[in-house]
């Protein structure tokens, strides 16, 4: 595309395209045929019928715009005999130079096109479209190629069609624009028609209208709200009025009701007032007079009765007193009380006393026994002085212990002494025994001398062993040396042999190479070698000599005497060794004996020490022995024993004393008791033998007396109380009598009878007064006690009537209120309904949404309308700007073609076809023209159209035998026009009429 635009910008007045050569591979009747066109602007192709003119025309079309598709009205010209379909055009144009356009059968029906440019580039459809400036087959056929049939269409050409052609030429080279306009119109009409109902926008608008009506309705409903609110307010007011009236009625009715209820009370009040008038005046009667009378007489009766009861009681007590009799003195009872408390103790002590006496006797026996054991007599006093305190006990314990230990040590010493003496004697015995074993001293001396003599002799033979060893060693060394020497010799021999063989070889070599220097050197080496051969061994010889000497020396010493000497020496040594042993033992024993002797001495000195200590201890301990009545020989342990015995004896004596004391104390108590007890027994004549029996008898008597005495006392007290009561009742009775008297006087009555009568009258009057009071109270509380009220409502009937009237009126009002309430509730609901209903709002929203949708449709329509308007505008431009120019051109060509016979062409608005004006001024429609002239008109139109294409592209014009009906003059005219045109367009004329050829030059003609 970019190259295109560059080309476009450099575009001149228009490109002239020229077909240079046709190369048909296979097309219709042609196969592998080349046709070259002349360089002239005009090319006439002449051929008889069936020569292939149409085929050629079709071929050129096909090459440029593709093979006709199968359903296309144009024939495809596929070779019937088979073979390659297609071919190539060599074209020349100013912008692209010479280009080969090759088209062969391909995948698409149009075939595959390949472009070959001068510079070697190739191209395809796109490049071809560039060259053709987008011209397509229909356009080309409409503008650039025409035939006889097309000429006949001149009758059908009208302004619009021409405009369409023109438009194609001026703008697009295709009729897409028209198709687009048609399409837009269709789509537009689908969307909206000014008076339609079905198109989308129309429908939307209608819907909007409906919605709007609904919306208005909802709005109206809202308006109704105002009315409803007013209605509600008025209803509320009505309701309030109604309620107020009802309240007034109700108050009045209540009043009437009250009055009706109060009527009986008023009646009774009148009666009461009348009754009060009837009572006599001035009744004097004390307050509560009758009650007081009743109370007083009742009390009088009561007091009288109580008085009788008291007197009876008094008599009873006096009788009981006279029946009660008591013996004995009251003082005895007090004494007995004391004895009674002591008696249980006395009884117990009597028992214990008996037990104590027995114990006392037992203790006495024990004590006597002990005393005799200790002292040998029964005197208690001796023992009392002895100290048996705890301190004394400790002292004794200590002393006795030490004394005991002393004797223990003595025993130990005795044992040690005995042992020492024994071992000393044993030692002495052993020494004597060893001395008996000793050698006589002279014998011993002899033996020692003999020993030293033998030993000297033996020293000489001591070397023999050493010699033997030396001989053996020498022998070994000799053997080794001999072995070594033998091996050395052997090695040397091997070396010699090998050297000699080398030498022999060397000689041969020397002869061969005649190198005597080498042989000489080798020879000298050999000599040196033999000079160092192994010598005889000097050392071996020396060793062998020494060995011989040693063997001789050994032989001399070997004899039996030596053996005998040796055994004698051994024997002497043994004896001497034994004697030596004994001497050593004696020595040791003697040392031993000295030690033992010392030990013995030490023991003896210990004895002395012990004696001394004993004396000191005895000095300490003997006073204790004496104190405790122990003989001096007694042992220490006995001292403690004695001490314990004496201490326990002393304890027994103390116990006995305590018993004696207790017995004595009991005796005393008993005696005191008896002193008081016995006189009483005597007085009451109690003669039982045991004290217990006497005591229980006395007790019985005493208790009885006490009981009787307390009875009498109680009776006396009662009597006194009764008498006091009697006096009190009498006084009360008298005071009541006085009060009664006073009461009667206050009412002015002489007797009780009279008094009572007066009292009854008074009570009745009071009752009536009370009732009156109550009635008046009731009336007051009902608010009817003012004098006017009291007098107004006397007529019950009138009141009842009034009440009924009021009730009816109230009922009426009730009904009215109900209906108002109902209405109000309805109104309220209506109001609430409107308040809650978002209907209007919702409708508004959905209306707005629909409006938006409709607006969108409208916009879509508007865009199409604008587009159409634009297209229309463009068409108008063509019609108004371009059409006149075209007409002008047509007139020009037509004038030439008709040799000036016709001057003007008209294309009236709305006219079905062209009109022309002859030079004489007559006007003809296209139908009215002769065949030839009509065809000339058509040709002029076509030429003019092609000319108008100048601005864009100059494609070859193809004219197919269009001039058959032309006279020679007009043909000439046409050819002159063609020549004019050929400056810009290659003109291709296909004809089968030979006479036409004469108007052209030879080189312009191709014969098929």
């Amino acid at each position, binding site marked *: 595309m*970019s190259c295109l635009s560059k080309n476009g910008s450099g575009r001149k007045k228009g490109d002239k395209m020229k077909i240079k050569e046709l190369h048909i591979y296979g097309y219709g009747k042609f196969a592998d045929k080349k046709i070259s066109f002349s360089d002239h602007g005009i090319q006439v192709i002449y051929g008889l019928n069936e020569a292939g003119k149409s085929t050629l025309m079709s071929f050129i079309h096909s090459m440029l715009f593709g093979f006709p598709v199968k359903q296309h009205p144009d024939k495809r010209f596929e070779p019937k005999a088979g073979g390659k379909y297609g071919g190539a055009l060599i074209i020349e144009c100013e912008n692209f130079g010479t280009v080969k356009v090759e088209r062969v059968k391909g995948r698409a029906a149009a075939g595959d096109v390949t472009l070959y440019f001068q510079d070697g580039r190739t191209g395809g459809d796109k490049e071809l479209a560039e060259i053709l400036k987008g011209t397509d087959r229909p356009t080309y056929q409409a503008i650039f190629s025409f035939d006889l049939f097309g000429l006949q269409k001149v009758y059908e050409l009208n302004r619009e069609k021409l405009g369409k052609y023109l438009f194609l030429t001026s703008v697009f080279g295709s009729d897409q624009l028209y198709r687009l306009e048609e399409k*837009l119109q269709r789509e537009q009409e689908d969307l909206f028609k000014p008076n339609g109902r079905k198109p989308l926008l129309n429908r939307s608008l209608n819907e909007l209208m409906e919605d709007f009506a609904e919306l208005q309705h909802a709005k109206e409903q809202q308006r109704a709200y105002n009315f409803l609110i007013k209605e509600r307010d008025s209803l509320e007011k009505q309701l309030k009025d109604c309620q107020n009236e009802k309240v007034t009625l109700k108050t009045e009715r209540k009043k009437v009701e009250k009055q009706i209820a109060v009527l009986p009370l008023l009646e009774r009040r009148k009666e009461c007032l009348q009754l009060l008038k009837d009572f006599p005046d001035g009744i004097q009667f004390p307050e509560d007079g009758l009650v007081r009378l009743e109370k007083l007489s009742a009390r009088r009766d009561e007091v009288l009765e109580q008085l009788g009861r008291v007197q009876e009681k008094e008599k009873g007590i006096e009788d009981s007193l006279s029946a009660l009799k008591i013996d004995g003195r009251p003082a005895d009872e007090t004494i007995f009380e004391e004895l009674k408390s002591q008696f249980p103790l006395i009884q117990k002590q009597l028992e214990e006393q008996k037990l104590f006496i027995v114990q006392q006797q037992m203790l006495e026996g024990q004590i006597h026994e002990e005393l005799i054991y200790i002292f040998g007599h029964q005197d208690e006093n001796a023992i009392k002085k002895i100290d048996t305190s705890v301190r004394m006990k400790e002292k004794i314990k200590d002393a006795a212990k030490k004394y005991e230990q002393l004797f223990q040590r003595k025993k130990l010493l005795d044992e040690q002494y005995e042992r020492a003496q024994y071992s000393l004697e044993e030692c002495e015995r052993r020494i004597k025994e060893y001395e008996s074993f000793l050698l006589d001293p002279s014998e011993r001396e002899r033996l020692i001398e003999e020993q030293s003599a033998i030993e000297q002799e033996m020293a000489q033979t001591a070397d023999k062993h050493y010699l033997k060893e030396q001989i053996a060693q020498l022998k070994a060394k000799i053997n080794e040396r001999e072995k070594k020497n033998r091996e050395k010799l052997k090695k040397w021999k091997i070396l010699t042999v090998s050297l000699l063989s080398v030498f022999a070889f060397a000689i041969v070599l020397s002869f061969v190479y005649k190198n005597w220097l080498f042989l000489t050197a080798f020879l000298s080496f050999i000599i040196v070698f033999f000079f160092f051969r192994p010598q005889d061994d000097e050392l071996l010889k020396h060793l062998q000599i020494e060995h011989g000497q040693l063997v001789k020396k050994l032989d001399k010493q070997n004899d039996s005497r030596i053996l005998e000497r040796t055994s004698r020496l051994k024997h002497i040594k043994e004896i001497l060794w034994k004697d030596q042993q004994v001497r050593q033992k004696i020595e040791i024993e003697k040392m031993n004996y000295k030690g033992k002797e010392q030990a013995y001495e030490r023991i003896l000195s210990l004895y002395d020490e012990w004696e001394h200590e004993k004396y000191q201890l005895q000095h300490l301990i003997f006073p204790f022995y004496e104190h405790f009545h122990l003989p001096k020989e007694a042992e220490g342990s006995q001292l403690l024993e004695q001490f314990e015995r004496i201490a326990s004896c002393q304890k027994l004596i103390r116990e006995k004393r305590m018993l004696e004391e207790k017995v004595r104390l009991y005796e005393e108590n008993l005696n005191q008791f008896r002193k008081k007890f016995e006189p009483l027994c005597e007085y009451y004549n109690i003669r039982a033998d045991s004290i217990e029996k006497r005591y229980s008898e006395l007790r019985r008597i005493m208790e009885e007396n006490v009981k009787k005495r307390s009875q009498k006392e109680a009776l006396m007290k009662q009597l006194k109380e009764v008498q006091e009561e009697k006096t009190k009742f009498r006084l009360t009775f008298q005071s009541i009598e006085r009060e009664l008297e006073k009461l009667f006087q206050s009412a002015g009555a002489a007797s009780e009878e009279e008094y009572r009568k007066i009292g009854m009258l008074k009570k009745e009057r009071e009752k009536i007064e009370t009732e009156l009071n109550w009635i008046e109270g009731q009336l007051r509380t009902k608010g009817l006690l003012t004098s006017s009220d009291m007098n107004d409502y006397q007529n019950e009937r009138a009141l009842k009537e009034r009440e009924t009237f009021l009730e009816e009126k109230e009922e009426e009002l009730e009904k009215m209120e109900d209906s108002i309430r109902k209405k109000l509730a309805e109104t309220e609901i209506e109001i609430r309904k409107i308040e809650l209903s978002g209907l209007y709002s919702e409708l508004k*929203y959905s209306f707005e949404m629909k409006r938006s949708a409709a607006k969108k449709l409208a916009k879509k329509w508007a865009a199409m309308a604008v587009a159409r308007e634009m297209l229309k505008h463009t068409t108008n431009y063509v019609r108004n700007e371009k059409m006149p120019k075209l007409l002008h051109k047509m007139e020009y060509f037509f004038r030439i073609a008709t040799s000036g016979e016709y001057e003007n062409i008209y294309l009236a608005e709305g006219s079905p076809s062209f009109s022309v004006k002859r030079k004489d001024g007559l006007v003809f429609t296209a139908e009215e023209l002769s065949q030839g002239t009509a065809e000339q008109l058509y040709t002029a139109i076509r030429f003019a159209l092609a000319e108008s294409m100048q601005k864009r592209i100059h494609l070859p014009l193809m004219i197919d035998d269009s001039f058959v009906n032309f006279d020679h003059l007009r043909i000439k005219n046409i050819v002159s026009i063609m020549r004019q045109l050929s400056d810009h367009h290659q003109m291709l004329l296909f004809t089968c009429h030979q006479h036409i050829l004469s108007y052209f030059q030879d080189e312009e003609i191709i014969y098929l």
Partner: protein
Amino acid sequence: MTRRITFIHTADLHLDSPFTGLEHLPESIFKRIQESTFTAFERVIELAAKEKVDFILIAGDLYDDEDRSLKAQLRLKKQFERLNEEGIQVFIIFGNHDHTGGNWVHIQWPENVHIFSDRDVECIPFVRDGKVLANIYGYSYPTRSVTENIVYKFQKRNEAPLHIGLLHGTASGTEGHEPYCPFTIQNLLEKDFDYWALGHIHKRQILHRSDPPIIYPGNIQGRHKKETGEKGVYLVELAEGGKSAYRFVPVFDILWNEIKLSVNEIAAVGELYDHIRAVKEQQRRNGSALLTIMLDGASSLFWDLMDQDHLDELAQILNEEEEGKNEFVWIVSIQHQIVPSDDFFSSSYISKDFEQILDHFHQFDEAMEPLYKNRLFRRFFQSFTENEKEELIKEAKTMIYYELFKQEWKRS
């Protein structure tokens, strides 16, 4: 101690007004959008309660149309009652959209709501603890169109520590809105007020930073694809003597957003789909949104994407998954400004004549005649705006080229 007052300045609630430019929404999203103006407003109320402000200023256009949606009024009343419980006052003027000349249902407002007169500029004092802390001035539109400059009617009255003006109108220099009550910044400065709470312009802008601040808070919820970006209110604190501090607080529920997407690197439609999905997911992290995707750049996909039907289809596929999502990202449209990857159009095919004809096209209205003459269309739509005209002409041109060269392109 200087006394301070805090308040929220908002305007152009347009409660219960439908979003434009949307079609065929799933139920769940439709409901959410329907509620969104209310949701945003409820957030304003929550903010007021949370910040314990003294009052709220609403500078006109509470409702979308002069007949005042009943639903909006009732919801508004509920929210105002809530403010009343919190002891927060509300000062309201009505604007061109909810002028008092409309035919609407009258609702009884709670006592904390103060509505300015439509006869003359009114002064309502703001009283706290028995003291007048500020004089608030305002004027409600009696008719839709108030074309005179009413600023001269604002006059400081009485002694008050602070003076605040509530004004619904067009400041000179703000384009694209009906020029109601036109005024200049200088007009406002001359009044020597402490704060000017403006309304009417939906895009938020600060006309004067301080002494006094003059602010358009913008609307609280975008309602069509041109109202992009965060929407909210201003939280203002004024101190005696005119010292001011304010900050923007977003309250919108659904974001309108336009995202430019370069297709330079994109070679296949599938890739583009993935790309837009990624964009969507990124957007979703910031909550629900309505997206316009603007494709630009040069691409070999030109011929694929040129056909608006293709793009609509792509949007539809992308939107399929959105129904029922908690936070949705709805592709409103995919538009393109793509050029083909090569210089196809500059090729020799197009006659200069033709191009010239297309470029000098003046017959738009003629082309629209059948549509404009349609009774129903006239009833529901106005003529296309200049912008739309331009777009449509471009589209038509593209359509012609596309249709004409489609064959060529398919061939190559």
